[in-house]
């Protein structure tokens, strides 16, 4: 999905690093990952799957294996998007998703405390 189609002002920046950013849409209950020249939409489950797939990439093995290119295709079953990333980009995506989920946890803690106080 192109960035131009979405009103960026309605999105909340969850986390960003030097290579990309993850946004949340409270209106559509989904996420947008701005990374590697793509602005891709994900739901909760698919974002978790993306994180799992990226975390499972062994960067050390990727760099040490001389029989294959230093690139990795990142996708999973049912995913509409595909990324072709080099080692540095994988590190950046790992960092981006790790930061994003840390922010989710932080947001959960804040929400949890607020709900308990209000209700």
């Amino acid at each position, binding site marked *: 999905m192109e960035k131009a189609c979405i009103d960026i002002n309605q999105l909340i920046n969850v986390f960003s690093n030097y290579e990309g950013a993850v946004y949340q849409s409270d209106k559509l209950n*989904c996420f947008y990952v701005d990374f590697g020249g793509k602005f891709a939409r994900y739901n909760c489950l698919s974002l978790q799957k993306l994180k799992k797939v990226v975390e499972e990439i062994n960067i050390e093995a990727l760099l040490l294996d001389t029989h294959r290119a230093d690139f990795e295709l990142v996708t999973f079953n049912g995913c509409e998007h595909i990324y072709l990333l080099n080692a540095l980009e994988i590190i950046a995506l790992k960092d981006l998703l790790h930061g994003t989920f840390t922010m989710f946890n932080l947001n*959960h803690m804040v929400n949890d405390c607020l709900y308990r106080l209000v209700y």
Partner: protein
Amino acid sequence: MKDLMRIKCLISQDIETLLNQQIKKEAHSSSLYLSMASWCNQNGYDFSSDYFTKQSEEERMHQLKLFKYVLDMGGNAISPEVTGIKTDFAGFREVFEDALEAEIAITQSFKNLASRCLKEQDFVTMEFLNWFLKEQREEEYKARRALELFEVIGEEGTGRWEIDKHVNDITYSED
């Protein structure tokens, strides 16, 4: 900002991972008990074979109970791969020693899970785990009592035959 992950799922990623690990452990136990049942049957310990078959069914039931909980809470329950099941045992006593060891490992694992729930203040999962913690009292009791038969009756003469005959008499009562 809405907590979208929470809207989708009641349990956290860490708890979900631990529950999936527990599902795998229960599946492993179920297979191990079945392997023990097979060994006992082949070596003429028919009553013990029945005992371990029943234990295997119970572990499978525990696995499915955990599996359903993860799904009911909106999580991703993973059907586990079970490998490395011990199929050969040095003797009748070793089977029961391994059974007790497996139960102790399961109890420890549940304690670890409960500890994580308390840390996260996930009282919903904690309440669910209470059933399993109670169940482990019975499981460990039965495994320990079975092993104690080897001390009480002894393995000499018709000892092992007597032990086999009494294994199914072991019952646990809270009162």
